[in-house]
């Protein structure tokens, strides 16, 4: 079994997610652009949070995150699937953020910074305690809306979405825990997401 690596934490990653990402990567490697767009949609918030916490000026987070995604796309041919896609993307994002900081300090680094495992763990640990003051009112409003919407869900939908999103269980594990078919789990998680999506829509439109 593959050991967990920096970037895996709280990623909600399990074998199925990794396999699904690999399938999207494989399609993107065959120049199916829509597949890479989905990977961007899936990881955009996570990458922006990551770089915002690394940069001294978090207002540049989107620009740096965009650069990281573009770099990832251009380097996609070298991704062999030895690690999870997000772990690979995480390293690119950290390197891009560090290069951005260095260039602003007039000490440009033209090379990719290779982080040792301990360095990466330090970064990950620091991120947990170094939440940026740039956390916007919108993200707070989103958090509240999501929590309220989850609170209003019927219990079976709430349990399914919590087991999936917070506990990171697979559909099969949730089906066992809830004593129902996998298809029912899939439907419950979808319906929970739809209900939360409806609550969020006015905020995001």
């Amino acid at each position: 079994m593959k050991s967990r690596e920096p970037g895996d934490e709280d990623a909600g990653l399990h074998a199925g997610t990794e396999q699904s990402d690999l399938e999207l990567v494989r399609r993107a490697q065959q120049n199916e652009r829509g597949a890479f767009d989905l990977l961007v949609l899936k990881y955009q918030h996570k990458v922006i949070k990551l770089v915002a916490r690394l940069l001294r000026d978090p207002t540049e987070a989107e620009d740096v995150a965009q650069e990281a995604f573009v770099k990832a796309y251009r380097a996609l041919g070298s991704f062999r699937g030895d690690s999870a896609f997000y772990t690979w993307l995480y390293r690119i994002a950290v390197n891009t953020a560090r290069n951005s900081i260095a260039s602003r300090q007039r000490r440009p680094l033209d090379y990719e910074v290779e982080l040792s495992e301990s360095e990466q763990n330090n970064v990950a640990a620091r991120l947990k305690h170094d939440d940026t003051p740039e956390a916007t009112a919108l993200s707070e409003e989103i958090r509240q809306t999501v929590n309220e919407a989850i609170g209003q869900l019927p219990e079976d939908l709430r349990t399914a979405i919590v087991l999936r999103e917070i506990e990171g269980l697979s559909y099969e594990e949730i089906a066992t825990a809830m004593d129902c078919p996998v298809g029912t789990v899939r439907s419950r998680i979808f319906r929970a997401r739809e209900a939360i999506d409806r609550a969020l829509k006015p905020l995001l439109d």
Partner: protein
Amino acid sequence: MTDQIREQLSALLDGELPRDEMGLLMRRLEKDPELRRAFGTYALIGETLRAPGGRIAAPSFAARVSAAIGEAPAIVEKTSTARPPAATVPLPQHVALWKRPIVRTALAASAAVTAVLLFRPDVTPVAQLEVTPANSFAMSASPTPAQSQRLAGYMVAHSQFSTPMVRRNVLSSLLAADPGITRVSYEMGQAP
């Protein structure tokens, strides 16, 4: 129907969508911005539950990344591809055989070798070759200007399919075919 597609989308996010359902869903996603928006929101919900607070992407972020990447299929650092998860997935049928990299390289190499052999009448079968002293070789005859012109045209027309080494080899033949250069001699330890 829409709910069924969105349920597939939700399963895709969780890595629980069967692979045989993925192709059709991907095609729908490319045409339907609302589906892409929903996928982004589903991801945001999970992210908010797992790690509340912090910045989130602007709604236009993914579109900006897509625009920055551009339309060109520019995966340039291609050394290998991600291994397919379980079973090998064949290339899409619309990718013609000749477009596959290995076939293209093989075709280009064969064509280049054929061209060199065709346009160099002095080429001797390997079995009849004699090792000349001091690593020198001679061209006893030159192709006609028409032949040279054809070879140059061939080079231009096929250079996109050949490797740098093949291009260099053919180019050497082309230079050697120049009427002004009838003999090239190279002595070990001596500048050419």
